[in-house]
Structure formats: structure tokens, C-alpha cells
């Protein structure tokens, strides 16, 4: 019995309730939310301190009976990889909450309460060890996101929320059907006790739900509207953190619990991942605006991570976990930067932008630094992650590695195009001379994310070497993550 995981989830829920009832002004509500999300990082660091990275089993676990009638329980806990994902999530969420505070979102009470609820649900997804609880958190993410996009989003927000909800609900209800059948077959819903299943239908129910969230081609139809119409910090959360819930589901549930179908469907999934990788990169290269580049690159990266996951070897798994954390930080930072640029120029379109580097050294430095890490320049942490994934997938067949390498070349092309489209070239018509450099508040949001990336670049093995207790990823997963 360990309360730490539960505290990590419900501190945020309590924070959300506090924001709802506290009789304070908008500014102070934001400060409470920021404070709660910083305390959350502190609690996470405590959890890292208590975690034994040498052991592959579930740690800091807690289990309380919820519906003993059907053997459903409140079971939470951490594996090493979920610990890193939670860390990435709470850091990104803190940055986004603070950004929302800094820009002074209207209807602050609802806004900050929903942001904290969303964070709680995300931490819940990464720590739940009961399938029904996992589903509850997975669906729980949708409720705040729906309102966050629908209320604070751009002009096309109605269509965006509808597409987003339709895709997500279809996916997750298929998963619910799969969960019910799988759980009743096994006689328990506790993931650590459930044995492997050979059912293709159940497998597909999970895969579709996770492929929509990630998103994988051809289930990415919700992506453009949702990412363009959301407020930038919500896009940051969506692409940085929420999409990782889908990839995490593949790693935690699909691969360990469905060894037979995973084996049979490996080629299909690797092909879909490759298509996602290349197609996303091409779309990013053609995107007319900064957000477009970031969102399609995020789709492309999801394809790369799935390649790593279905490479089914130590290198692939370690690389995938590292890349999930990398991409979460990178994509959140890029979306926040996109928001900062849009605030200055009221557009993100390249044909109206350009030349912003002149006289704005902080903006230029930060955009360039994050962009260069995003395109996986050697010595960066993204390079380490992508290299591990390519090496892993190479063992499945050299062809996959070639596709991956093409994707990485394309990444360099679209990122450099985006950087030069914003920072260099002639000064665009939408860039007013009065557009300021990054303010202190904005730097305080982005620079910590950048510092995390630089720290990981110095020591990527912190994650890739400590993601599966004892670093035997394949063996741990083959045992079904008991």
C-alpha cells in the first residue's frame, strides 16, 4: 500500500476543486493552479526518489476493491516507463498552466479547474493498473478537453470539437466493448493479473482506440481542425501528452497482453506506422503555417514511436519510451512558441511571417534550439531516441529502418523550413516592428522545457536505460508486465 500514486492523481483533483470554490480574482486563481502544478512536480520527484529502477515489477502500487462483484478494483502503480511519462506530463502541464495564467485566460475559474482535472486524468491513465479504471481516466481526459477546445478555441472550434469527440468516442467505446469481453473472460480487470489473450477482435478494439489517440494513419482525421482551433497550450497538451496516452496503451496493454495477435498483425501495424511517419512528414513539409508543421510532425513522430514499439526488442522499446518523453517536451514547447508567435502577429502563416530573428534574440534562440532538437540533430536527445528506434526496427528488417531514415531526413527539411519561415527571410507583412521579444513570463514557460531537453541530451540513458527495470525491456514485456 503506497499512497504516493494516489496523491499524485488526487492532488490535482483537489486543486481543481479548490480553484472552483476559492473566492479569489482571476489572477489569484491562476496562481493557485500554477502552484498546484508545481507541487505536483515536487511529488513526482519524491516518487522518483522512492523508485527502485533495478526492479521490473509494479512499484508504489495501491489496490482497493471497487466493484468486487466483477473483480474491478482501484489499482494504481508505476512501472519505470510510466514514471517517466508521468514526469513528462506533469512538467508539460505545469508549463501550460503557467502559460494560461500568463496570457490571462478569461473565465479563469473554469479554465484552471479543467486544466487541473485534465492533468489528473492524464496521470491516472499512466498509472491505472485496472482496465476499467484505465478506461475511466482515458474517457475522463475527453471531458475537460471538449470544453477547453470548445470555449477557449478559435473561430472553427465547433467543428473541431465535434470531429475530436466523434473520433475519440468511437475509439474509446470500441475499447470499452473490448475491455468488458476481455475482463469477463479473465475473471478480473486487474491488468497485473490478467493473462494473455489470443482474440483478434479484442486486440483490434484496443488498437483502434489507441491508434485514434496517437494518431496513426488513416485515423488522424480529427487532427488538423483540433490542433489548429485549440488554444496553443491545449494543443501543446494534446500533442505532447494526450497523444502519448494512445502510445502508452499500446505499450502497457496491447503488446504485453496480446502476444499472438501482435505477432500476426505486426506487419500491418509496421506498415501503418511507416505510412504515418512519411505521410505526416510530407504534410508537415507542405503545411502553410507554423502550427501545421508542429502538428503533422507530431503525427509523424507517433508513427516513428509505433515503429519502435512493434520492433519488439530492447532497443525499440527503450527508444520508444525515450522518444515519447522527448516528443512530449518538444511538441509542447513548439506549440507554446507557436502561440507566442501568433500573439504577436495574429497569424502563423509563413507567407505573412519572416524575419522575426532580427532584434529578438531570445525568441530566435529558443525557437532555433527547440527546432534543432526536434529535427534530431546528432548529440540531441531526439537523435538518441530516433537512433535507438531505427536500430531496433532494423532488426525486424532493414526496409523499416530505411523508411524511418527517410522520415528523419524529411524532419530536417520541414523543421528548417519552419525555422527559416519564421525567423529568417524577409520581414513578413504580418510582423509589426513593435512585436516584442519573448517576455520574462514566456521564457519562464519555455526555457524549463528546453532545459529538460538539454539535460536529456547530455544523459539520454537516464530514460532509455531506466525504462524497464534492469533494462530487459523485451523480457519484462514478454512476461505481460505482471
Amino acid at each position: 500500500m503506497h499512497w504516493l500514486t494516489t496523491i499524485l492523481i488526487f492532488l490535482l483533483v483537489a486543486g481543481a476543486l479548490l480553484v472552483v470554490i476559492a473566492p479569489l480574482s482571476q489572477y489569484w486563481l491562476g496562481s493557485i493552479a500554477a502552484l498546484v502544478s508545481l507541487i505536483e512536480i515536487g511529488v513526482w520527484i519524491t516518487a522518483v526518489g522512492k523508485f527502485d529502477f533495478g526492479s521490473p515489477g509494479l512499484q508504489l502500487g495501491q489496490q482497493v476493491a471497487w466493484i468486487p462483484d466483477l473483480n474491478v478494483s482501484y489499482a494504481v502503480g508505476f512501472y519505470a516507463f510510466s514514471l517517466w511519462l508521468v514526469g513528462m506530463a506533469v512538467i508539460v502541464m505545469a508549463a501550460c498552466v503557467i502559460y494560461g495564467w500568463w496570457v490571462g485566460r478569461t473565465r479563469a475559474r473554469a479554465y484552471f479547474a479543467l486544466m487541473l482535472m485534465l492533468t489528473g486524468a492524464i496521470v491516472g491513465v499512466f498509472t491505472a493498473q485496472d482496465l476499467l479504471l484505465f478506461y475511466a481516466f482515458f474517457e475522463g481526459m475527453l471531458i475537460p478537453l471538449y470544453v477547453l477546445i470548445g470555449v477557449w478555441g478559435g473561430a472553427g472550434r465547433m467543428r473541431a470539437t465535434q470531429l475530436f469527440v466523434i473520433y475519440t468516442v468511437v475509439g474509446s467505446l470500441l475499447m470499452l466493448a473490448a475491455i468488458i469481453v476481455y475482463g469477463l473472460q479473465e475473471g478480473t480487470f486487474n491488468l497485473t493479473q490478467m493473462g494473455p489473450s489470443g482474440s483478434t477482435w479484442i486486440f483490434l478494439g484496443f488498437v483502434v482506440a489507441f491508434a485514434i489517440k496517437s494518431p496513426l494513419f488513416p485515423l488522424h482525421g480529427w487532427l488538423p481542425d483540433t490542433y489548429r482551433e485549440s488554444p496553443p497550450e491545449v494543443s501543446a497538451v494534446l500533442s505532447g501528452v494526450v497523444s502519448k496516452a494512445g502510445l502508452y496503451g499500446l505499450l502497457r496493454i496491447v503488446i504485453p497482453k496480446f502476444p499472438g495477435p501482435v505477432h500476426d498483425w505486426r506487419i500491418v501495424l509496421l506498415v501503418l506506422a511507416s505510412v504515418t511517419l512519411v505521410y505526416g512528414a510530407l504534410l508537415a513539409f507542405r503545411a502553410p503555417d507554423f502550427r501545421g508543421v508542429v502538428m503533422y510532425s507530431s503525427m509523424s513522430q507517433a508513427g516513428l514511436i509505433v515503429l519502435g514499439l512493434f520492433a519488439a526488442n530492447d532497443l525499440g522499446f527503450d527508444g520508444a519510451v525515450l522518444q515519447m518523453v522527448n516528443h512530449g517536451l518538444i511538441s509542447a514547447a513548439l506549440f507554446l512558441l507557436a502561440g507566442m508567435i501568433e500573439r504577436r502577429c495574429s497569424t502563423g502563416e509563413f507567407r505573412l511571417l519572416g524575419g522575426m530573428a532580427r532584434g529578438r534574440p531570445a525568441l530566435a534562440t529558443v525557437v532555433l534550439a527547440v527546432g534543432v532538437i526536434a529535427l534530431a540533430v546528432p548529440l540531441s536527445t531526439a537523435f538518441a531516441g530516433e537512433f535507438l528506434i531505427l536500430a531496433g526496427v532494423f532488426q525486424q528488417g532493414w526496409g523499416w529502418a530505411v523508411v524511418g531514415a527517410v522520415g528523419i531526413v524529411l524532419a530536417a527539411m520541414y523543421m528548417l523550413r519552419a525555422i527559416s519561415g519564421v525567423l529568417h527571410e524577409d520581414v513578413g507583412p504580418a510582423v509589426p516592428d513593435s512585436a516584442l521579444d519573448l517576455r520574462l513570463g514566456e521564457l519562464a514557460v519555455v526555457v524549463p522545457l528546453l532545459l529538460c531537453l538539454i539535460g536529456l541530451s547530455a544523459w539520454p540513458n537516464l530514460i532509455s536505460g531506466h525504462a524497464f527495470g534492469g533494462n530487459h525491456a523485451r523480457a519484462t514485456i514478454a512476461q505481460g508486465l505482471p
Partner: protein
Amino acid sequence: MIIKPHVDWLALSPSLALLAATGIQLMVAVFTSGWTRKLTSAIVTFGAYAAAFALAVVVAARTPNGGAIVADSIFRDRYAALAQVLIAGCGAIAVLISYGEQWAEDHLAEYYALLAAAGAGMMFFVQASNLMTLFLGLEWFSIALYILTAIDIDLVGSLEAGLKYLIVGAVGSATLLFGSALVYGITGELSFDKIAAAGHPHDAMLVVGLAMIIVGLAFKASAAPFHMWTPDAYQGAPTPVTSFMSSATKIAALVVMYRVLVVAFPADERLWRWAIAAIACTSLAWGNIAALVQKDVKRILAYSSISQAGFMMIGIASANALGVRALLYYLIPYSAMSLGAFAVVAARERELRVPVTLDNLSGFGWERPLLGVSMWVFMLGMLGFPLTGGFIAKFYVFSAAYDAGWWWLIVVGVVATMISAYFYLGVVRSMYLRDATELQLAPAGGSPPREVVLSTGIVVCAIITIGTFFAVQPLIDVCRAAASALPI
């Protein structure tokens, strides 16, 4: 000498308490007027429902092993007692919703008297143990509801709704009566258990009778294709009446339907399982698809109640121990969500004094945060989202279907839920995502009425909706104890 049957007054007490309230307040109304009449009527009715609630709990506590009593005409068991507890709860909350409604003063006492009488009829109905008491109970509460629907003759559509409900409802009752006659004709028995013991399971006359009984009860449960009256009656009736009809009537009809099927017709289980499954699928399909194009919130909720009946009937069609638990559990969050949702509609109606449509809900969530959040909870609950009992209810119903070997019912339910996301979230969209200024709407004037009584009712419903998500096992234990009275 006439042999009098032994009368178990305790078993009848929930029904009698409400009946007594009906009489008392009609007399009290003679001596009161104005706000005193409003207050006394409401207090008497609320008190009677509270008393019925308590008495049903006492009956449940003192009846570990149920059985038929009073010349084998009614059951005294935990199954009926649980249904009575739920109906009493719905009635009490319906009183809270009714309190602030602007009734014509000369109808006020009748309104509350009929509300209590309808409750009394349902209490009697859920105890029925033979075809005669079944029909008596059905007509008892139906007639009260017909009048309640049409009681506000100043309200546009109320009279029309009452008439439609009366005619269609009478067809339903007649079908039930005809079916009962056929069953009696072939078996020579009225009691449910003796019908089962009499044999003749696959005789054409018995099967036709069974089908007609199912149809008659499906009318009351407003399951498609026997739902024609539902949208008009729900829309036309005064909103507090709708809230009571949508929750309590559904509890009574579904609980009794399950009892009749498993007690009286166990040998025809295969037949009625398919019939119920077919009705469930039709309700799911029609309720959800028709709701997509509605603009009036009460009509949306009416179609939603049709589809919810479909979900609950999946539990009946499963015909297993898990299924009956699922059905009984489902009724708890469902009635809270339904009462609460109509109560929020009532609040908006009193503010605007026009029928509530999706358009004039715009911005409601920001104007009235408490009601808005509650409505959000009810809509997510109906949709079956986590943090509401609606999620667990659907989970249980689907589990029962799988347990019964009918996984395809899960698929139907899942597809229906996907469709329903559009209109349930449509209500949330209107409340939060659109601005009132965008549509140039303004409340009827002045600051909106603050109704503590109504808000209390809504908050209670919201607490039940969310609470049932957490306290699942205690409720399931209660449902299991109730289900033990049935031979399943």
C-alpha cells in the same frame, strides 16, 4: 360466512401512506388558500413520499424471504420493496421540482393529490403477483398520470399531450388486458407462479398472450416501437410531471416486466428473450437517431428516455443473475439523471417563460454555474461517461449481455452510445460553447429566479448520479438482495 384473507398491512403501507396523503390534502386544500395551500400540499406530498420510502425500507429489512400475501394477490419481497424505495425517491424529488412551478391556484391541490395517487398506484403495481392486480395497478397510476399530463390547461400542448397519452395509453392497457385474458383462458390461472406451473408453454394462445402482455408493459416503459406517445406527452406535460413520468413510470414498468417474464413464463424464456432483445434494439436505434434532429430539449430527453429503456432492456434480455442486478442498478442513476435533467429544463423554463430549445440554452452554463454543471453531469451520465453512475450502469448491462452469450447486444449498445454522444454533448455545447449574446437572447426580465427548493432537488440528483459511480458495490449488494426474490 365469507372467509376474509389475512391482510398484511405493513406490506401495503407504502401504497396506503400515499393514498392517505391524497385524501388529506384534498381536505386541507378546502381550508387553505394562496401560499399556505402551496406549502401544505407540497409538504404533505413530500412527507407521504418520505414515509413511503421509510416504510418500504422497513418492509425490505423485515422480509428476508419474500412471498405472495393477501390471498396471493400481491408480493411482499425485497424486489418490490427496492422498486418502491426508488419510486418514492423519485416522487419526493418530483415534489421539490414541482414546488416553484406556477400552477393555477385552483388546480394546485389536485396536482399534488394526483402526484401522490400516481405514486400509490405504482407502489401497488410493483407488488402485483397476479394478472388482476397487475392491471389494477397499471390503470391506477396511468389514470393519475393522464390527468397530470393535461392538468395545466393554460399550457399550450398540455391538453393535447394528455389526450394523446390517454388514447395511446388506453391501447396499451387494452392490449395488456387482452393478453391477460388469453393467458387466463389457456391456463385457468391468474397468479404468476401458478401460470408457470400450469404448463402449456408453447401453446399458441399462451404465446400470443405473452406477446400482448410484453407489448402492454413496453407501452408504459416507452420502448420503441411502442413509444409514439412519449415525445408528445413528455413535451406537452408540465415539466415536473414529465420528470416524474420519465423516472418513476420507467422503474415500475421495467421492474414489473422482468418479474412477470421470469415468474410467469420461465418455460418460454427463449421466446421472450428474443422479443425483449428486439424491442431493446429498436428502442436504441430509434431513440438515438430520432433525438439527433430534435431542437426542443424536452423532446431530446424524451427520445433519450426511449433509448435508455433500450439499454435497461438489454439487462432483461440477458435473463441472468448479472442482468437483473444490471437492470436494478441502472434504474438508480437513470432516475436521478432523468429527474435532474428535467428539473434543469424546468428552471430554464421559469426563467424564459418559453419552451426550452437548444438555442435558448445558450450561455446557460455560464449564467447559472450550479445548474449548468449539474446538467453537464446528467448529460455525461446518460451518455455513460465515467465519474457518473451511468458509466457503471452501461458497463453492467453490457457485462450481463456478454455473460448471457449475446455479445452482439454489446455491439448494438456501443453503436447506440456513439450516436447518442452527438445530442447529449449537443446540450453541453449549447450551454457552454455558445454565447447568449451571439443569439440575442435575454431572460424574461430582471434577475433569474433563485429557487432554493428546485436547486436542492437538482443537487441531490447530481450527488446520486456521481455517488453511484463510487459506491457501486453497496448498491449492487442491495440489488442482489432484491434479485434473490426472483427465481433466476
